[in-house]
Structure formats: structure tokens, C-alpha cells
């Protein structure tokens, strides 16, 4: 029964205006406000008196869904867009991680040649599109922890300014502008639109403000620090198929249909399946990147397919353990699944069922916050990036490192995220190759 009417509608509004892969999962589970506003619009003409967020949220849809290469030209012409660059400018040691970049992001040249690092304590800020859900709260917490450490070292203002536009692009534009004007030196960005803020990126760079986006934006003058959704999805699927010996029935649980991230993940999983005729997708439905929706949808599928065996589950994020729970509650054997959230319940599931989880990655909020902070600190130290689109390999536990991520307090009922610390050294080391010049960054704060 998952995904009926307004739930889907508000989810599409949120997801379709989402440019990023992490935002495509937990952050976008929540939008009671968007849902309520849209329902009000549908149910009563007085909706606009209650909230004005509906129209501006939807206005970003066309641009936001354009992470595929097909929409690149339109996106690139807006705002302060500049010509893209090729993968040749990417450091040699990172080029393998850009193998499918054109299915997810666009590469822009370094726009920070004239950037002058501010003197004195740095004011860190964040502009986010999303309602303060679990993922968003985790992200803000990580930033606050790192800013506190910098403040204690005398390198930052102690307050971390966060503006949340509550799924409203128009509000985010206004808030972002306000942050530029109010003295923020570094703005971390969770954009609801890939293009709506482009003109303000020009303003920001003119005012010597560093903008570091957690998701791809389709114009220059902001630096993107992200990982490649296509590559991650491909690896998750390929490992799952291999673990199944390329034989058996698969349930395919997608994110929100029509959203760029879901399409990218689907394309990657299908590409990994090519040539393996022994694999059969017996069920394909949406779980909307929401565990409860996925669990109900899986339960419904199982009840309507009583004789069909399930050998593997393709999970586009945050839904794998929920689907396994549905299998368990229906009295079915558990299936193999690749997991990618890096949250406590997935780690607990892996601990209990190691043979069922061939591959895990970790797209939790803290490692992403850490990567963006790392890049910001390098820019503040006068270092110059090779380009403005930095894609890093997504971290994740392996059989050898699993116990660095897992703690016994984690259960399959935990909604927390694992400590990011095991992921941080590799991220810092990887990002270093993108920068030249400037001075060394003497202290990297770490989220806990």
C-alpha cells in the first residue's frame, strides 16, 4: 500500500528537487510540512493562507531532475554557469572514481583562483533545503562538533549558523542570500535545486565566501564534494549478483520513481545485470527510500506472490533491512542484500547474517560533512583545487574492518548512524590529491 497519493506527491516534490544521493535517502524520508501543504492545497482553497511553500518547491523539478547528461545544456546555461571541463583535469589517482561521472555530475573548473582566505575567526554556516529529519540532524550535529573543535582552537566563531528552508527553494534562495550578506565565510550547502542558487554563487565568490555543496550543482562558483551514485549502485548490485552466483529471483525496491537518483541507481543495477540471464527480477516496486513503506510494499508483494522464492534484494537505499523484516514476518527465508546506508540497523543485520550481505557502503551524514569541511579548510589555507567537482569513493566496512564500524549496542531496531571515524582517514587522504599550493592544514576536526 505504500506510496499512495499525497505521500507520493510530496515525496516526489522533495525528491525531484533533490540533486544528491544522500539527500535521496534518509533526508527525504520526512516532509510532513510539504505533504501537509500539498494536501491542504488539494483539500482546501485556503492552503496558501497556511503555507506558501508548495509552489516554490515544485518549481525546481525540471532542473533538479537533470543529473543525467541529457539535461546538462539547459542547466549549464543558467546562473553563473561556465564551461565544463573533462576528466583529464582530475588527478590521476582519482580518475578511476570518475568513470561514470557524466551520469551523475558535471565537472567545472576551479573558480577560486582569486579567493583570499579571511583573516581572523571563520564564520561557518549551512544552508539546507531539507526539514530537520534524522539524516539532516546527523549532518548538522557533525558540523557543530567540528566547528566546536575549530572554535576551541581559535580558528572559528563558536556559533554555527544553520538555515533550513523546509523544502522550499524560494526560501532557500532568500536564506542563502542572507547568509552571504550576514558575514558567513564558509557556507555548506544542501541545495534543493541544482540551479536555483547559481546566481548567488557568483555573489558569494565576489564577497569571498566559500560555498561547498554536498551534492552536484550545475554551475560554477561553488565547489561540489560528493560521491558517485552510479558507481556506488553499480558496485552494490555487482557484488550482490556475484554472491548469488548470477542465479535466482530478485526483488527490486526502488526509491521514488522519476527522481534522478532513483533513475541513476536503476540504470547502474541494470547495467551490472547485463549478460547474466540466470538472474530474474520477480518483483519491482517502490519503497520510496523509506523503511516502513518498503516493508509494507514487500509484505504486500509477498502476500500476492505466495509461491515465488526470493533469493536477493536490490535496495536503492534505506530499505533492505525493512524488506528482510517483511520476509521474516511472512515466514519466508531471508535473502541476500547489499546495503548502503551505514546505519546501525544495517550493521546489526550484517553482524547477525554475514553470509547474506555481500557488500556494504556508508553514506551516513557525518563522513559527507567531514569531506566538505576538509575541502573548506584547504581552501581557507590557500590551497587550490584541481577542479570544482570533487567525487570521492564512498567509504564502507569490509570483512576486515567491520568491527571498526559495528558496536554491540547496535540492533536491527536502531536508527542511529555508525561512528564515521573509520571512514575519515581515507577521505582526508583521498581529497589531498586534488589540492596544490597554500599552506598545510594543521588541524582537521572530526565528527564523532
Amino acid at each position, binding site marked *: *500500500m505504500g506510496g499512495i497519493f499525497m505521500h507520493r506527491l510530496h515525496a516526489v516534490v522533495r525528491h525531484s528537487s533533490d540533486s544528491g544521493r544522500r539527500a535521496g535517502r534518509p533526508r527525504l524520508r520526512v516532509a510532513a510540512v510539504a505533504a501537509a501543504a500539498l494536501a491542504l492545497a488539494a483539500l*482546501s482553497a485556503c492552503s496558501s493562507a497556511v503555507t506558501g511553500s508548495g509552489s516554490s518547491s515544485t518549481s525546481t523539478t525540471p532542473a533538479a531532475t537533470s543529473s543525467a547528461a541529457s539535461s546538462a545544456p539547459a542547466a549549464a546555461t543558467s546562473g553563473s554557469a561556465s564551461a565544463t571541463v573533462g576528466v583529464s583535469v582530475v588527478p590521476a589517482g582519482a580518475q578511476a572514481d570518475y568513470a561514470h561521472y557524466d551520469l551523475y555530475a558535471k565537472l567545472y573548473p576551479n573558480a577560486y583562483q582569486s579567493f583570499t582566505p579571511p583573516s581572523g575567526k571563520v564564520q561557518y554556516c549551512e544552508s539546507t533545503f531539507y526539514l530537520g*529529519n534524522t539524516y539532516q540532524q546527523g549532518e548538522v550535529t557533525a558540523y557543530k562538533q567540528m566547528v566546536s573543535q575549530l572554535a576551541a582552537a581559535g580558528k572559528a566563531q563558536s556559533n554555527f549558523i544553520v538555515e533550513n528552508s523546509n523544502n522550499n527553494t524560494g526560501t532557500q534562495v532568500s536564506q542563502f542570500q542572507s547568509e552571504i550578506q550576514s558575514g558567513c565565510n564558509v557556507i555548506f550547502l544542501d541545495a534543493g535545486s541544482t540551479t536555483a542558487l547559481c546566481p548567488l554563487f557568483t555573489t558569494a565568490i565576489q564577497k569571498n565566501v566559500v560555498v561547498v555543496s554536498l551534492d552536484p550543482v550545475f554551475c560554477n562558483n561553488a565547489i561540489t564534494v560528493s560521491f558517485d551514485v552510479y558507481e556506488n549502485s553499480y558496485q552494490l548490485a555487482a557484488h550482490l549478483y556475484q554472491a548469488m552466483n548470477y542465479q535466482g529471483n530478485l526483488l527490486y525496491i526502488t526509491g521514488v520513481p522519476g527522481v534522478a537518483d532513483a533513475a541513476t541507481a536503476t540504470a547502474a543495477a541494470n547495467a551490472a545485470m547485463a549478460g547474466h540471464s540466470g538472474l530474474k527480477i520477480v518483483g519491482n516496486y517502490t519503497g520510496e527510500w523509506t523503511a516502513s513503506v518498503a516493508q509494507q510494499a514487500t509484505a504486500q508483494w509477498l502476500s*500476492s506472490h505466495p509461491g515465488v522464492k526470493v533469493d536477493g534484494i536490490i535496495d536503492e537505499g534505506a530499505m533492505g533491512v525493512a524488506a528482510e523484516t517483511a520476509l521474516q514476518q511472512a*515466514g519466508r527465508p531471508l535473502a541476500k542484500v547489499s546495503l548502503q546506508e551505514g546505519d546501525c540497523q544495517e550493521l546489526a543485520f550484517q553482524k547477525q547474517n554475514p553470509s547474506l550481505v555481500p557488500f556494504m557502503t556508508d553514506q551516513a551524514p557525518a563522513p559527507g560533512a567531514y569531506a566538505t569541511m576538509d575541502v573548506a579548510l584547504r581552501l581557507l589555507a590557500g590551497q587550490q583545487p584541481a577542479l570544482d567537482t570533487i567525487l570521492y569513493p564512498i567509504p564502507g566496512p569490509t570483512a576486515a574492518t567491520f568491527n571498526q564500524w559495528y558496536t554491540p549496542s547496535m540492533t536491527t*531496531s536502531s536508527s*542511529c548512524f555508525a561512528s564515521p571515524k573509520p571512514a575519515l582517514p581515507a577521505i582526508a587522504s583521498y581529497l589531498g590529491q586534488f589540492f596544490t599550493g597554500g599552506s598545510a592544514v594543521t588541524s582537521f576536526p572530526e565528527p564523532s
Partner: protein
Amino acid sequence: MTDSSPVATTDGPPGQARAARRPAGSASNNVTAFVADNFTRALPYILVPVLYILSLIFIPGYFSKLSIISLLVLASLLGLASLGQTMTIIAGGIDLSIPSVIGLSDIIVTQLYYKHWSLPVILLAIAGLAIAIGTISAVSSVLLHVHSLITSFGMSLIVSGVALEWSNGAVNGAVPGWLTSSVSAIGHTGPIPIPAIIFVWIVASVLAVAFLNRTRVGRETYALGANSVAARLAIVRSTWTLVVVFSISALCAAMVGVFFAGYSGIPDPTVGEPYFFLTITAVLIGGTSLLGGRGGYQRTVMGALIVAELTTLLVGVGFNASFQELALGILVIALTSTYGRELKVAAKI
């Protein structure tokens, strides 16, 4: 099951009060009107077995205990969540806070049980909170002279904020095993191999129908929804009635939140989101008027079953989520237009 809502007594049972109002016409017209009237009323009750038979035809092996129980578990969750919505809509209002109350309840029960709180204490706390939420929605609607659409929406935002703040990005949760069993298709209720939520839904349905039809507050709910001005002039206790129905709505939502905690075992403030519109869908498909004053929970039971059956059927025959929504949308429009036509015909004849 027959429609025994007070509408039948105030607005006339099928073919009696209406017939009394009708001017003398041809016998064939009267027969046509009578058949149309009763067919419309019976439509949801007809659809339930029809959809089940279609499922048996199109889904191999569907006639199995697990399949039927799975269907009933999903319908129970929706049916319970829609119970209070039915009452608020009959009273001429609507409760938009149901999803957020479900989420808050889910968070509270999973997190406090994880912290070794006594389950009865947790349930009492949740019930008290739910009654407070319902009361505030209702009283603010009366005091501020605004539709409950607005006040319950505001309450939804407040409750969502509390749930999000409570979860605070990183929480652990736990639920007792019997709670998980109570919503699992392979669960037991004592020695009976049927999950408890189905029995809870049956009991709640009987109580809800009795409440609406046999109690003073129930009748006042219909009167208030039919014409709030006239109801007040008739000394209907409008504030008290709204407080009761909105409290029942919040209590039902909280109960669903508790069941959801058992269902998924995960503290998730967003778990109720799908019920934002699904509850309204079940109420409308069942035939309760969104304008208030007509309908009954027995109809919503049918609506919840229809939604669950139709979705399962479409999943079973391989239609994707988009088509499922399309089908449900068509069904809502088709049925509600039929119900609307019922009123129009009644008014004309």
C-alpha cells in the same frame, strides 16, 4: 452489513423517509430510484468480495492463510488509522495530524522501551499525549473559529517537530516480542494463529459503530457535521463532541504508531506519512461524505479493505506503483461521484 448510520434515522432510511418526501411519480421511476439508491449504498460492500474473487482468479496460490492474513494486517493498520478520521469527517472536520501522531507514538514506544520503561506506563503516557493533542486541535478550532483542517495541520507540524527533536538523529529502539508478533502475518494471539491486530481492529470497529449509532455524542457528531449552526441551536455540545472525536482520532493514530513500532521495530518519526492521505482515501471510498454528517465507520472498514485488496491485486498482476495510484485515484473519483449522485437524486426526487 447494512448501513445503520444515524443518517438513516435523521435523513431517512433507504426508501422510507425519502419516499415520504417524494411527490407521487411513476412506479418505474420510484423503482429505479430505489435500486440506484440502495446499489450506491451497497457498492463498497459489493466491491470487497468482488476484488477478492478477482485476486483469486489472477493471483496463483492467493487462497492461502498467509496471504489472507497479510492482507488483513495491512487493512487493519489502515482501518485503525482511519477510524478517528471517519469520526472527524462525519463531524464536519478533518484530522491532518494523524501521520505525525503515528510517528510520535512510534518514536516514544520504541525509545522508552529500549530504555527499560514499563510498557503500561509508556502506553498510558502515549494515550494521555494523544488525548491532549486531540483536545488542543478541537478546542483551538472552536476558540479560534477556524476549520479543524487548519488547527490539526498546525498540530501536525508541532507534533512532527517534537517527534524529530525527540529522535534527534540517532536513537536506538526496541519493542517487546509480542508486539512484533501482533502485527506479523505468522504471529499468534495466544493459541490462535492470527495476529492480534486483526482482533483489535474487529473490536475497535464494533465499538466505533456502536459509539456513532448508540451514544449521544455519536449522534451529536452526525448533527454537527450535517449542519453545525443548526446543531448548536439544538443545544448540541459542539465543543465537547469535537474534543471527543479528535481525541479518539489521536488515540487511534497513537495505537497505530504502537503497532507500527512492532511492525518495523524501528524508531521512525516518518512512519505515518503514507497515512496522511490513505486514511482520507479509505473514508471516501467507503462512502462517508467529506462534507460531514453522513456515513459511518462500517463503511470505512470496507474502504480500508478495498484499498488493501486493490493494491494487493495490482501488485499481484504486476502493475507498478504508479499504476496502483492511478487505479486508486480513478476508484476514489468514480465512487465519490456515485455517492454524490446519490445525494443529488435524493434531492431531486
